[in-house]
């Protein structure tokens, strides 16, 4: 195997490969990345057995062939090399990496690609397309609400179901929930609701240009994605997602409308002084003004008032500030609404006027 390639284009893909490879243990073939060249293309494969990744970049193939090498060190080497063309060549059991026209010579021990786990593949007919931007927007609005509590593994992913004329994504950690129901112009096949690991979705979000379409397939407890020159697959989370519909308030008595950026800026400022552990933030909603405040601590306290549109009784709500900061960070639009019925019941944060997504936050105790 021998090829030459621009260092930077190889580096970009190897960085992604290293992200997928979980273990940094040199002893296992799973710490290796597979590279294969033929017909002036280089195929790169990486897996942690749950998520599989495959991509292609153009190179100059001199000798077709394939091998696997320790990804962590390959990445380090590529990072350290000056920009320009590099040559990669298999010599016996080592892979030689050297920049052209320079006296630098790295040799990495390789393991034959035959020992590398097979990449999962899915029948082409099972793929359906969806506009990249739609899919990425859905990931953006939900992925941060995923729980990392491994004892509630069924909350460790984003729930996705066929919503009739589109797709529904829901994520929750049991205290806040993010929901999006996007109408998709393309035809979506029926499928049983699934729970998708955030690693898979994060990867799509990172790699996709948001332009064009992305092809998806769901088969046999796996999900597959194809877009640009990338192929990604992942195991799905096997578990029962809670009945999320039960916790979405049907009707809320009060609604407060505020300027999103103004609210977000104030939120970031006041959050500086909320209690580090509980992160409790107070929101006082009154006619024409909304006040954010932290509780008094040894360090001090913060308070900020911003204008709002609200008709109702003065209400005080306590929330975990992160649960408000997270959605605000990704919500598009100029105005948002905060809807509630009582201080101790779920509040909704949504764009104003309404769009196809919203976030629900369970408050904290007031005292």
């Amino acid at each position, binding site marked *: 195997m021998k090829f030459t390639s621009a260092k930077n284009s190889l580096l970009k893909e190897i960085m992604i490969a290293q992200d997928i490879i979980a273990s940094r243990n040199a002893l296992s073939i799973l710490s290796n990345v597979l590279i294969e060249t033929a017909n002036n293309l280089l195929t790169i494969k990486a897996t942690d057995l749950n998520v599989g990744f495959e991509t292609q970049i153009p190179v100059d193939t001199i000798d077709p062939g394939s091998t696997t090498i320790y990804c962590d060190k390959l990445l380090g080497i590529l990072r350290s090399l000056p920009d320009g063309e590099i040559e990669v060549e298999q010599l016996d059991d080592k892979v030689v990496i050297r920049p052209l026209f320079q006296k630098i010579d790295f040799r990495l021990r390789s393991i034959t690609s035959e020992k590398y786990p097979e990449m999962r593949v899915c029948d082409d007919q099972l793929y359906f397309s969806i506009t990249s931007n739609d899919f990425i927007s859905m990931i953006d609005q939900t992925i941060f609400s995923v729980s990392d*509590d491994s*004892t509630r593994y069924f909350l460790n992913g984003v729930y996705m179901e066929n919503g009739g004329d589109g797709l529904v994504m829901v994520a929750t950690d049991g*205290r806040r*929930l993010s929901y999006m129901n996007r109408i998709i112009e393309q035809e979506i096949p029926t499928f049983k609701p699934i729970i998708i690991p955030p690693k898979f979705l994060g990867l799509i979000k990172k790699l996709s240009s948001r332009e064009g379409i992305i092809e998806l397939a769901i088969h046999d407890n796996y999900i597959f994605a194809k877009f640009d020159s990338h192929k990604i697959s992942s195991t799905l989370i096997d578990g029962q997602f809670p009945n999320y519909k039960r*916790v979405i308030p049907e009707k809320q008595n009060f609604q407060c409308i505020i300027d999103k950026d103004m609210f977000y800026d104030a939120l970031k400022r006041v959050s500086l002084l909320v209690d580090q552990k509980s992160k*409790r933030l107070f929101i006082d909603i009154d006619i024409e003004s909304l006040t954010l405040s932290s509780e008094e601590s040894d360090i001090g306290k913060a308070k900020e008032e911003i204008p709002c549109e609200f008709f109702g009784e003065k209400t005080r709500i306590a929330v975990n500030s992160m649960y408000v900061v997270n959605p605000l960070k990704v919500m598009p639009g100029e105005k948002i609404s905060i809807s509630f019925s009582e201080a101790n019941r*779920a509040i909704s944060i949504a764009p104003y006027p309404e769009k196809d997504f919203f976030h629900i936050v369970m408050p904290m*105790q007031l005292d």
Partner: protein
Amino acid sequence: MGETWFFHIDLDAFYASVEQYDNPSLKGKPVIVGGATSNRGVVSACSYEARTYGVHSALPIFKARELCPHGIYLPGRMKRYQRVSEHIMSIFSEFSPTMQQISIDEAFLDMSGTECLWGPVEQTAIRLQDAVKQESGLTASIGIASNKYIAKMASDRNKPNGICFVPQGEEYLFISEQPLNKIWGIGKKGIENLNRHHIHTVENLRSFTLPYLKRVFGDSTGSFYFQAVRGQDPGFFSTTAKSRSVSNEITLEADTVDKEQLRGLIHQLAHHVMFRLLKEGLIATTVGIKYRLSNFSTFSAQYTPNKPIYSAEEIFAYVWELFIERWDGASAIRLIGVSINSVQKRDQPMQEELFYDDYKRKHTVEKTVLKLRSKGNKIMKASDLLNTDHSLQRKKD
């Protein structure tokens, strides 16, 4: 402003003394609590008569039996001790508004400014001893000093039924007289480590600068040594400590590999610690498991979920998972224990849950059970009997 004074009060051979008080025929005899039914486990407490044979607490029972074959070995009645302890603590709190109980048989009293009311602190200590003796029949040893750390060490000085008074300004002298192994907070391992650095006395240790001690022993141990040998309170018993830990362990009657029996025991232990928490109005944030194999090798592990733990069933689920992940299923188990750490006071703001989950419901049930139990009902939850599987099987990657 009066002077700052702390009492450290330690009840003498507490469990054994309660036994002797409840059964006067045991008075003057070597009473050993723990290991009445077998040779397993360790000594929980022993009377001063037993100590003359070399028996001490935490000594394995079989060794105690070798040293003191004619001792009276009793099973231990925790409930009775708990009640006596509660009563005695209420006597303590009559002497000072600021009492800090640190275990079943020890407490600190902040006696600062009580001299106007009670007179000199040494006399107050005598009065306190009398009150305890009169109301419970037990004796207590008291250490008096300007800080809790010295008071704690002083109470050990003239045991039993003694008082040790360290006048203000003489803390330094008091510490100087102590052998290194009597310095509270320096254990067996600590002594070994100090000896390796050729440090054998308090004087030796005092000759090093703070930066040196920090470099050699690490930041926290280094500054602890520095303060301790100067008679300054290193803050072990600071009242602002937000966390506590509660644990319970059992030495099995016979070593076992029976998974169902172990599941039952862990379940029982989980309930036991949870009820103690509920009683004190605490909530758990970290759970831990400890087990010892028949060759005495001991394992422990902890887990901190990202939400507070509401019920015993939940503690059980986490602990069982910790245990099952580590135990090979073949090595016989001798001792098993469950602990809960980083326990916050319940008055911390609580985050409400969207999905009113099962554990919270169980928490309500357990609270009700506790109420009934405290009224003397022998009530048990059905799952205590059934050993149901609390399906938290995490998906294996």
